[in-house]
């Protein structure tokens, strides 16, 4: 439980200041053109190992078949292959072998396809283990894993057609067979999905369903996750870079963090702001969250930190959801440059109704909105959410499994307290907001569609930040960093998990 003051993370890294000569000191095999910022640039990263025996790819193949077998639905087809879809607009690495969907012939016998490729991949897999130099085996989706996932999918279909009795029976089986401590990622994923669906069945039967979160546990696991996985830091540092650029030569700045939690993101930014050549700005921060007690604590920590840096700082806690407040609560001041930051997650509904959130964005007209989205849709019917999240979290579990041992208590805490909580939320009745209200599929698209906002492409400096972070996290060759369409995407293998983007108000010149 880390409750102490903040340490300056990456103090040795120079956060890149805009318009300065690049004094980059990063050891990477990436060559950057320093003159201009190309929009569509494919980053060559070290992941060229076309492992076919990864859980997430299996899930994709099996779910594709399942969806094909279902009678056609009136709604749109599930958007679970967001990574593949984006292949149209941005170039993903290894996309020519993977991005293309399987031939129709392969769908009829997915098992055979999988087994063949599993065997093919065998040699490479051993090589990989040696490379890692530890006892960690790459996750292998074995017979057991396949049968569990198949049963899980059948169960999801049962739930989607309201056949709860049958679903319950299957869930009883699944919960007895799958262990969350297993060596195989497939089994772990199944264990948690089965439990989430059990909850849902019970909730359906009870007729009521209200989310209950233990925030302290969540924050604690969030920190643990931050330590072993680059996704959070990726979100923080790329956003900080965009904010820094927006604050260039401004001396009164205001940051609104829509879900500040413990404010892990901000010390690094404060450090840079405090040591700017043009001097530190006066910083005001509005932190939003669920518990006033936790917000006040976070505010105290940040204030202490700012004081140590000699930076003038004000903190305003608002224990409400962003989409439920009025603009008057934010206390805008003249002459201030406003940045709004939002790191999206599925742990709980942080912002309330989406349309209200968008409207407030428009009213605030900030200089920059930094948005980090999970490449996962919260909207749609149950089966859509199920398929999408199965793919997403399988990938997430794969990424943890490649780095941590099966009996690592930290891994268990992250999977159980963080990822499972998200899975449970997404699959719950009414979706994460529990209101059945439709959530936007992609905030990026919404912002793009709105007349009030213009996208700010993520700069090459942000990209450099991301690359530096990846260098810190083994196995670096598992993570995939892609720049395209003005956004930065971080994922595992060829599935994008988080997308960072930045936006500015078309009318804002605060």
């Amino acid at each position, binding site marked *: 439980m880390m409750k102490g003051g903040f340490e300056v993370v990456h103090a040795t890294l120079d956060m890149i200041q805009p318009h300065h000569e690049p004094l980059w000191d990063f050891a990477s095999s990436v060559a950057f053109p320093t003159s201009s910022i190309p929009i569509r640039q494919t980053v060559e990263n070290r992941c060229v190992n076309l492992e076919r025996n990864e859980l997430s790819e299996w899930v994709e193949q099996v779910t594709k078949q399942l969806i094909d077998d279902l009678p056609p639905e009136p709604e749109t087809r599930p958007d679970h292959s967001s990574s593949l879809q984006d292949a149209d607009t941005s170039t993903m690495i290894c996309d020519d072998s993977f991005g293309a969907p399987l031939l129709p012939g392969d769908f009829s016998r997915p098992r055979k396809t999988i087994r063949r490729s599993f065997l093919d991949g065998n040699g490479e897999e051993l090589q990989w283990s040696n490379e890692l130099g530890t006892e960690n085996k790459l996750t292998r989706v074995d017979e057991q894993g396949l049968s569990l996932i198949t049963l899980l999918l059948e169960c999801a279909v049962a739930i989607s057609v309201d056949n709860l*009795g049958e679903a*319950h*029976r299957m869930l*009883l*089986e699944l*919960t*007895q*067979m799958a*262990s*969350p*401590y*297993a060596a195989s990622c497939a089994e772990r994923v199944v*264990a*948690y999905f089965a*439990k989430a669906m*059990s*909850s849902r069945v*019970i*909730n359906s*039967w*009870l007729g009521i*369903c*209200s*989310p*209950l979160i*233990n925030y302290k546990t969540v924050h604690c696991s969030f920190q643990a996750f931050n330590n072993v996985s680059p996704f959070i830091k990726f979100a923080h540092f790329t956003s900080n870079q965009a904010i820094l650029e927006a604050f260039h030569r401004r001396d009164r700045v205001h940051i609104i963090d829509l879900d500040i939690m413990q404010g892990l993101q901000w010390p690094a930014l404060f450090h840079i702001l405090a040591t700017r050549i043009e001097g530190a700005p006066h910083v005001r921060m509005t932190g939003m969250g669920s518990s006033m007690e936790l917000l006040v604590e976070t505010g105290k920590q940040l204030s202490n930190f700012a004081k140590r840096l000699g930076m003038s700082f004000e903190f305003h806690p608002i224990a409400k959801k962003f989409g439920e407040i009025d603009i008057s609560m934010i206390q805008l001041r003249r002459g201030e440059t406003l940045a709004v930051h939002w790191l999206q997650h599925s742990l709980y509904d942080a912002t309330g109704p989406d349309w209200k959130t968008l409207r407030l964005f428009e009213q605030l007209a900030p200089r920059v909105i930094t948005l980090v989205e999970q490449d996962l849709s919260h909207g749609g019917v149950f089966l859509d959410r199920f398929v999408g999240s199965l793919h997403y979290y399988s990938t997430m579990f794969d990424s943890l499994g490649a780095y941590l041992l*099966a*009996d*690592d*208590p930290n891994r*268990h805490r992250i999977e*159980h*307290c963080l990822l*499972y909580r998200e899975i*449970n939320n997404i699959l719950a009745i009414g979706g994460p907001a529990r209101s059945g209200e439709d959530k936007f599929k992609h905030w990026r698209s919404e912002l793009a569609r709105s007349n009030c906002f213009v996208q700010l492409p993520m700069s090459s400096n942000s990209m450099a930040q991301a690359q530096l972070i990846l260098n810190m996290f083994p196995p670096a060759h598992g993570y995939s960093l892609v720049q395209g369409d003005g956004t930065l995407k971080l994922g595992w293998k060829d599935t994008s998990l988080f997308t960072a983007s930045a936006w500015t108000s078309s009318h804002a010149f605060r």
Partner: protein
Amino acid sequence: MLNELASPYGDCDQKLASYFLQALFCKATESGQRCYKTLTSVAEKSHSFDSARKLILKFQEVSPWTTFGHVAANGALLEALDGEPKLHIIDISNTLCTQWPTLLEALATRNDDTPHLKLTVVVTANIVRSVMKEISQRMEKFARLMGVPFEFNVISGLNRLGELTKEALGVVEDEAVAINCIGALRRLAVEERGGVIQMFQSLGPKVVTVVEEEADFSSTRYDFVRCFEECLRFYTLYFEMLDESFAPTSNEKLMLERECSRSIVRVLACDDELEDYSSTGGECERRERGSQWSDRLKEVFSPIGFSDDVVDDVKALLKRYRAGWALAQPHQDETGLYLTWKEEAVVWASAWKP
């Protein structure tokens, strides 16, 4: 609300909440029998000799919950059967014979004349049935190693323990009979218990050893709330004990917890009518406290106290485990020995003679 916080993979409270909620759900939807059947059949399918053995051995390694009963029972058995040339031990338990190697060793090393041992093991749980072949081979091998003349029988055709008959046991005239019941009597339907104890008496045993978990799901069986409370009390103790004995991400611990979850469903969500047994399958699981069993057993048997030697053996055993375990000896009216965990009595061991 509970549903949101409960999880079979979280901390103790979350696990208990999850399993009890499951049982309540089964009860409320009147699907207890069906759920129980599904749970047990899945469990049986995924068990193998290796997994069952690994589980039991690991549990014995980290906790004296089962070994306490073994040591006490073996001590009483050896003392009561001392000097007898032909022994017939009837073992009614699902401990996969982990109790017997120590006994065999004692028989081999104690006297000059090693007695002949016939071991008849009665098993009903399907999980155990499938592994008995492997076990019998190992036992025979071990006995040969120890130089103990040995005969091993398995009675496994029973659906329920209540079907056990005197004839099936094959007791012969000149044998000294001992009956060893570990966690067995609770598997009998409540109404059958008296009858089976009578049947034991008719076998003319020299000693009967009974080991049971200290909980009362039997007298409360018509009072759901009280039964629920007692279940919660007992399983909270048990789960906390498991949590402190095993590593946090232990699969063995998970297996044991799941076993409990099945028992909880059985006790809280299934009806107990005798006719239902054939459809439910499995056993009763309604435990009784030591004092209750004593009342039953006293009708045909009289208690034997455990000798100082045996008590010392048990104390030595407990020293090998983590702190928290202790031995409680009976007060005036009580019989047997109690294993206590954090000063709560959890397991009861006793010995009886006709």
